[in-house]
């Protein structure tokens, strides 16, 4: 199966790889997995608490090219967005942007889940 140019671009040159200190204030960490393929994806955000804007995002994914590209794109998209805007990112938008084939749609679902998990972790931690 051939990867699209955009997937290859993100795979070869992934954006925002790395990690944020998950104990740091104003961060949120989402760790999700896809049991059908054994992929595991971590996506982290750093939020400005004054205006709820995501100022930084990092990811690390152990998985196929599409999973890496989906999470790389997800970090690009969430940066600069408010957490509410980021919450509304749909996996179908990732599918469209990366031209993912049907068998790789679960990779985009994983990225959407990771964004949501990171935001809910941030909310939980900032309330608590």
């Amino acid at each position, binding site marked *: 199966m051939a990867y699209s140019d955009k997937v290859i671009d993100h795979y070869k040159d992934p954006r925002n790889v790395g990690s944020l200190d998950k104990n740091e204030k104003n961060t949120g960490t989402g*760790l999700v*997995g896809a049991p059908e393929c*054994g992929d595991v994806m971590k996506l982290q955000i750093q939020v400005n608490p004054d205006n709820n804007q995501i100022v930084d995002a990092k990811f690390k994914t152990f998985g196929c090219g599409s999973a890496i590209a989906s999470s790389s794109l997800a970090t690009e998209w969430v940066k600069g967005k408010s957490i509410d805007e980021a919450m509304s990112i749909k996996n179908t938008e990732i599918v469209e942007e990366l031209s993912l084939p049907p068998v790789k749609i679960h990779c985009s679902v994983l990225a959407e889940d990771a964004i949501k998990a990171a935001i809910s972790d941030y909310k939980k931690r900032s309330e608590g």
Partner: protein
Amino acid sequence: MISDDIDHFELMGLPQSFEIDSEKLEDLYQNLSLEMHPDFYGTSTKEKKILSEKSSVMLNAAYSTLREPVSRARYLMSILTRGVSLKKDDLPEDFLQEMFSLQESLDEMLESCDQSALCKMNEDLLKRSNLIQSNFASLFKKLETSPENTETLQQLQKHLNTERYLRRLLDRINSK
């Protein structure tokens, strides 16, 4: 000729069960491949040849799926869970965390070519994988008497999910 919707067990002439007689599987495979081999249809009509090729492909798929316990378990699960809705990602968060950490440690080991650490990890993972596989026979046996038992199916699904994550790590170690 073989019909398209026949399952792997039926095709091999084996009962639909996790526990199979591996020697019998080998024998059946040998006999059936001789029977179906396209080489024996050299002088036959084009149609017969195509059918023979198709049957050989199906036979090889059945054999390679059934001979290995994990792929056999996955295949049998796919049959048993038709129309049943199971929680697909029934894994505790600390398990995912552990898998993520193991992947990160593996990154370091591979980078530094730390052979002894890689061997140790490989051994540990195999042990865990074997331990998981040792549950398959009894769980599938349970399903033979009560096929609608969702709890047992869910348990099996969880073991298979866990095995998939371990397999990913093992594949990474062994592809180097």
